[in-house]
């Protein structure tokens, strides 16, 4: 235990204007361990890692690498100290080959040829040593995300990184790909490398780390041995109060269908079919979850139903009314008139106008409603009263309707959108990624609110790439892969089963061969 730690941070401070992102952070990372750093969005994890990787400079505090006090003025210095980072958004050049991406910044000399040759043989060696197989001549844009991430890891290893930082590495991966990544991390650890894993997923921390540090609002609140802690304890440390990780709900009592979709096909602007002959129904009083890895047609499905995107063919029955989606010209406002609420997947792009105030955003899309107008003018007193009511009911903080929504946290922004859609009392609610970038406390609230709505006899279609969320909320789960619904499972579907379906493998049909890359 007296071994020099791989990394030691002492009293690290960093502010961005008035925001104190890191307060007196102390951290000791043991050599050859997998050390998790967990915390909610905005807790300061990424800032801390960016300081370690030389992307930002700390305002105050000391960094020790291998017992040596160091300053890290830029990424180049971090790389030279053997620190490698796999960013959440991959730092790859899409139209370069794997080989070119690996040598970028570590080319050996002015001419490329030598560096490329060395990289090719070095990649071969790394491939054998760590089982990181990837074709060096493939273009990045042709690779699935799991392999792109592998290239990022190879980049770090090629620069002989001894300490590897991974920032939210599983966000874009299927469960199978995530498992594979964890295996790779185990191998790295066994080879003596140190791994720092940043995540907000408790499950990953429990599955793979040796030690875990918890951050909350810019402070390091605890560092514990993973085997001596539990998910509940970590969640409490992250949020600062005890939280319910499970959604409490009674079995659904589905009634008549409120929404029926048949043979829906959607083609995107490139002319590619993104939704292929999809049919399903949503009944009153149930939550239907659509699971799938991001980019398998769920977003387009949701947008089409919401009236934002047009379909090639397909029929939608909603509240008894039949609409031919292939020929209809209904837009988002028309769909709302048919009692369909929509919580879009990306609240910044489609849900809110962040330079508008909270009360303006609270009627966005419903601003034509006569209840909110006096003749040609907006009835501001009614609108503001409505906003104040929603703020209270949804515990939106800070409780100030005059504030621009840009100044609210992710969780509170999401509550503003949810309040707006749910309070119009639609028969059907389309919900996309309701808890993306939302802290645990708000997740708990949002989930409860959706279940309440279901119990009030409404139909909910939930699209989420978070498998945990799908499993926690859904009464039925549909899995989308490559634009098709490839399977349906009940309320208590197994995670592994769903994971395979998400990768296009149906265990019921027993075609498991070789698994997924």
């Amino acid at each position, binding site marked *: 235990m007296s071994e020099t730690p791989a990394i030691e941070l002492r009293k690290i401070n960093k502010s961005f204007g008035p925001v104190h992102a890191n307060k007196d952070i102390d951290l000791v990372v043991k050599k050859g361990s997998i050390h998790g750093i967990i915390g909610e969005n905005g807790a300061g994890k990424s800032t801390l890692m960016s300081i370690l990787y030389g992307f930002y400079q700390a305002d105050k505090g000391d960094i020790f690498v291998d017992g040596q006090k160091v300053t890290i003025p830029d990424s180049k210095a971090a790389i030279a100290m053997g620190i490698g980072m796999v960013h959440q958004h991959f730092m790859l050049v899409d139209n*370069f080959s794997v080989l070119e991406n690996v040598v970028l910044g570590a080319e050996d000399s002015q001419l490329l040829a030598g560096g490329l040759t060395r990289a090719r043989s070095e990649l071969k060696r790394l491939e054998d040593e760590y089982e990181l197989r990837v074709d060096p001549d493939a273009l990045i844009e042709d690779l699935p995300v799991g392999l792109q991430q592998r290239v990022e890891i190879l980049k770090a290893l090629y620069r002989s990184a001894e300490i590897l930082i991974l920032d939210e590495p599983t966000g874009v991966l299927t469960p199978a790909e995530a498992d594979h990544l964890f295996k790779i991390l185990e191998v790295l650890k066994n080879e003596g490398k140190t791994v720092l894993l940043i995540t907000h997923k408790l499950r990953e921390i429990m599955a793979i780390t040796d030690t875990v540090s918890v951050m909350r609002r810019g402070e390091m609140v605890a560092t514990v041995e993973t085997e001596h802690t539990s998910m509940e304890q970590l969640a409490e440390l992250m949020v600062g109060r005890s939280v319910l990780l499970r959604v409490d709900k009674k079995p659904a009592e589905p009634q008549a269908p409120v929404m029926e979709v048949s043979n829906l096909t959607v083609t995107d602007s490139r002319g590619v079919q993104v939704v292929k002959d999809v049919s399903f129904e949503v009944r009153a009083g149930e939550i239907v979850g659509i699971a799938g890895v991001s980019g398998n047609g769920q977003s387009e499905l949701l947008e089409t139903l919401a009236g934002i995107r047009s379909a090639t063919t397909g029929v939608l029955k909603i509240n008894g009314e039949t609409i031919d989606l292939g020929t209809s010209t209904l837009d988002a406002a028309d769909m709302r008139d048919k009692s369909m609420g929509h919580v879009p997947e990306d609240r910044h792009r489609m849900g809110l106008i962040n330079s508008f105030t909270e009360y303006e955003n609270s009627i966005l899309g419903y601003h034509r409603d006569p209840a909110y107008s006096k003749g040609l003018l907006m009835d501001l007193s009614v609108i503001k009263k409505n906003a104040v009511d929603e703020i209270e009911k949804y515990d939106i903080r800070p409780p100030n309707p005059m504030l621009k929504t840009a100044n609210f946290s992710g969780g509170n922004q999401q509550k503003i959108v949810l309040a707006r859609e749910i309070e119009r009392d639609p028969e059907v609610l389309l919900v996309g990624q309701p808890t993306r970038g939302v802290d645990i406390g708000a997740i708990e609230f949002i989930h409860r609110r959706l279940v309440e709505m279901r119990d009030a006899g409404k139909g909910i279609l939930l699209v989420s790439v978070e498998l945990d969320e799908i499993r926690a909320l859904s009464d039925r789960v549909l899995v989308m892969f490559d634009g098709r619904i490839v399977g349906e499972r009940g309320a208590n579907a197994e995670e592994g089963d769903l994971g395979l379906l998400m990768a296009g493998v149906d265990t019921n049909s027993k075609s498991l061969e070789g698994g997924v890359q």
Partner: protein
Amino acid sequence: MFEDFILILDSTVRLSTPLLLACLAGLYSERSGVVDIGLEGKMLGAAFGAGAVAYITANAWLGLLAGIAVSVSLGLLHGFASISNRGNQIVSGVAINFLAAGLTALLGQTWFRQGGRTPALPEGGRFGDIVWPFAEQIREIPIIGPIYAELFSSHNILVYAAFLAVPLTWWILFRTRFGLRLRAVGENPAAVDTAGISVTWLRYRAVIACGILCGFAGAYLSIAQGAGFGVNMTAGKGFIALAALIFAKWRPASAMLTCLLFGFLDAVAIRMQGQELPGVGEIPVQFFQALPYVLTVILLAGFIGKAIPPKAAGIPYLKERS
């Protein structure tokens, strides 16, 4: 007929040269992610600088250096606005075009009092044609003779420099470390930054390379092809070069072919001036002059493959604050 054709090709080469130099200049800049609509202004500034200095010193080489200096300075201005201060690259480029158009005319008039032109160049102030060995003897051989003597021989050194710059640019772009980084920074500057390379310095180097080539292009107009600077003598060549760059999809060899095509259209236009075509009548010069733009629009509309610019072109790089 064959002689005519050779003559048209000969003038194609002469007319393509400034386009090619400016197009390759734009290639360096845009491949690094800095959109450069100021090629025109830089060329014009360089033409003036070259013309003025070549007149005063009676030395074409000093003229060329002066042209490069002016063009690089304008490039650095563009860099300062759009790289260091993350300004809008189009606005900065347009500003440089106005600046060059105004300043050259103003300084030209103040210094030389000839309506903004520079006086005719003295002996030595101009790049002369280089006649290849045995050109006169071989000229009489059919086919090969004229091709050798007219098409290959008897151009000034900047013409050869322009065409040599094509393989050189390809080699730099795809065979050197600088080229790899240049291409990377135009696609994903964050990847370059996290690899420990300075995005700013890399883009500045690209802008300087662009300035040097624009300097060649401008000098060619005033002290190689022409014999002095004339007001607004670039006459939109910078914009045609930009169109050629898009048409060539930011690739060196295609850039050369495109510039030759555009130069050829120009040569034909000059040749056809006042001539009747059987069955068609006289074709207006404007038709040929418009063709490069028309072709580029057709390309952009997606009829001849797709022109995908470097992904980060036009976007100032800012470290994201997470």
